[in-house]
């Protein structure tokens, strides 16, 4: 894995980011509605003078290409601009919300991979067994059910029938001044339902994928050899088979990261999780261009970084790829 590989991947990533910024800039402006009118509406109405001063203040009266140039120049210098709505730096708004989103996405990713792989391996052991049938049915259902529907069902279940888990927010507000350990537990408690909701669709995919992958690997000659040599079932499954079967899972995990973030947008909205997804959703309704652009920029960056990490780990896991650029 050479430096040239890394540089090449990074430059692809930068180009991609530039494309994302330009495309988003124009797409957002295609939506009907004037941000100044939204701000004025929120103010309770306004005169033409106030409307004009809002447009002047946020540069909305400048030509679109000038606005694009100002925005790209700002981004290049690390300035994502100020939110039209909150009149605060977009970077600050995102900074307050990126940790909850990362916590949700990473937890869901780990949960789905770990549970999915375990289910897949167990199913692959006996392809015609009960577990295999369960994984197939569960995968089909899990993959077919929309993430927001799962969230709503869980809210209904846990709001009234079994009030064990909190159904909204990330923290009990009355514990905001409690100690670190209490707050960490509180956050973990709030994380259970949104993380499970987000994980379930991918869990189903990983279970199905690892089952298929393991079935293929388990029929290989070297597995038969390992068994003939008297290796235990655990050693065969997890040491010999899983490492090879994990390659496609790793690839899919990287590619799915973007989907996971877009899923997080819905889950955050359903569970009132204070992350970037909810900020994006609210900002779209408010025509808060800089905030929408900032969230999309960060989300794209996370996807680019995730894909880069996938590329690197793929090469780490498969020595045959290390010589290639």
């Amino acid at each position, binding site marked *: 894995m050479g430096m040239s590989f890394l540089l090449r991947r990074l430059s692809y990533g930068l180009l991609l980011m530039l494309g994302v910024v330009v495309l988003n800039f124009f797409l957002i402006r295609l939506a009907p509605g004037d941000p100044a009118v939204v701000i004025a509406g929120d103010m*309770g109405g306004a*005169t033409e003078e106030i409307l004009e001063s809002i447009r002047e203040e946020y540069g909305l009266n400048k030509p679109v290409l000038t606005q694009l140039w100002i925005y790209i120049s700002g981004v290049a210098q690390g300035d994502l601009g100020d939110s039209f709505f909150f009149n605060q730096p977009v970077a600050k708004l995102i900074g307050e919300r990126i940790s909850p989103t990362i916590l949700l996405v990473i937890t869901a990713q780990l949960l789905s991979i770990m549970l999915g792989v375990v289910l897949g391996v167990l199913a692959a052991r006996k392809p015609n067994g009960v577990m295999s049938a369960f994984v197939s049915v569960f995968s089909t259902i899990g993959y077919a059910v929309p993430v927001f529907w799962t969230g709503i069902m869980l809210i209904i279940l846990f709001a009234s029938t079994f*009030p064990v888990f909190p159904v909204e927010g990330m923290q*009990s507000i*009355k514990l905001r001044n409690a100690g670190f350990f209490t707050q960490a537990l509180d956050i973990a408690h709030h994380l259970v339902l949104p993380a499970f909701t987000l994980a379930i669709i991918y869990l189903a995919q990983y279970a199905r994928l690892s089952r298929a992958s393991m079935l293929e690997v388990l029929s290989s000659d070297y597995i038969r050899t390992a068994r003939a040599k008297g290796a235990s079932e655990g050693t065969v499954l997890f040491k010999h088979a899983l490492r090879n079967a994990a390659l496609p899972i790793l690839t899919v995990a990287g590619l799915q990261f973007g989907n996971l973030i877009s899923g997080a947008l819905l889950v955050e909205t359903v569970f009132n999780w204070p992350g970037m997804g909810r900020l994006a959703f609210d900002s779209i309704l408010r025509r808060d261009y800089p905030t929408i652009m900032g969230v999309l920029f960060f989300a794209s960056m996370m996807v680019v970084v995730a894909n880069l990490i996938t590329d690197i780990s793929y090469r780490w896991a498969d020595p045959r790829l290390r010589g290639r650029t």
Partner: protein
Amino acid sequence: MKLMTRLLGAVAISASSLTAVPAFAEGGTLVIATTQAPRHLNGAVQSGIATGVPSAQIFASPLRYDENWEPQPYLAESWEMAADGMSLTLNLVAGATFHDGKPVTSEDVAFSIMATKENHPFKSMFAPVEAIETPDAQTAIIRLSQPHPALLLALSPALAPIMPKHIYGDGQDIKSHPANSTPIGSGPFMLDEFKAGELVALKKNPDFFIEGRPKLDEILIRIIKDPSALLIAMENSDADMYPFMAGSQEIRRLEKAEHLEITDEGYAGIGPINWLAFNTKSEKLSDVRVRQAIAYAVDRDFVTKALHRGVSQQQRGPIIESSPYFTDAIAPYDVDLDKANALMADAGFGDGMDLTIDYIPGPKEQQQSIAEYLKSQFKKIGINLTVRAAPDFPTWAGRVGGHDFELTMDIVFNWGDPVIGVHRTYLCSNIRKGVIWSNTQQYCNEKVDELLNAAAVELDTDKRAALYKEFQEIIGQDVPLYTINALPYHTAYDKKLKNVPTGIWGTMHPMDTVEWSE
């Protein structure tokens, strides 16, 4: 699998035990839940309830109002209106300080009122204020260009926050001043944390100028965008108060919670009206007979009793019925389909017509549901009504502000005095294309302008009421819009809370007397 189950179980058990911990001591924290996110916290340059509630806690104002529309001392311990109505003298309380320890002086009052005049969207509030003299640190004399009966009400916490001149007077544009998100006021609570779109945390001002207040240590305003999640928070006591609740399902549901009290008091000053507006410049709707026919077809009783499940009240005119200036002499337009059909025929539309109605997306029960009900109701008078949805507020505001509509549902607040919240909808001079909640109906009647302008300077309450009575009667005849109901705002709160604000401004009033009982 077992390990994972145990881990999840451990987290669940540990965390669920947290809920058993007494959340706060009596007299400590009040959690207010709301669906509305404030842009910032300075009500001097921003109207609306989202900013109004925290702003009224952070900033003190010259006066405050009780539930009988009577002004009460606040930063001004006394006041005197000149006999000719051309000036108001405010005598400020001694010893009031801002949260940074600097004293509140008449300079701050003068600066704040002039800044509000320049920057607040309600231009009529302080339009007649010409100058403010400050003969000494405790006296401010407001000089007017004409008598201004709405002035005292405009000095309420919701409308006239007194800002520290030493912070806001630094030359920056006040509308976008950074201190709007980190405000310093002289109110009962100080800002602890403002997380945009999520939380406003306010803590007790230990040096508040009214001795023994505030009672609470902390007010946390939590923004929960999803109404269902908000209801669950109220039911589970994760939140203690939910003001500005308008959905009948929400109200009926929270009524069942034993620990909660529900009241519809506290909204008289806001005066929220739900109405059907006409584009009077539209070819089909320029004929008053068509507008009257439509008015005769709308059944307010059905809307309030069936669609709103009895939680809302009918509204018969442009001034909220709880206002002293409302008159019941206005044409009621009780449902009369025969009369409506006759009017349509007289106007030359006996064969019917096509119309389109818009509505504000969001408050479904108040807007979309009524628009859909009107579709079936209008068929009875030969109108084929198309309900045009807008994906979001900006789209709707663009259409209505740009006069690109025929009929629209709308929600507009009276804001206490008709000069502040009513005149803007009817004055010819306020037909402003592109400006939402101006006179978007493009209705213009010289007699109405004359009456409103006279009422704006009339200090005698009875004479003023007579002027508004005549205005309302004309509006009843001309029907530039048809008022349907008052928004059924309710406040749900924990029964253990005492002195919940139920005055004319509700929670947009300093909550310095609110406290927890045993």
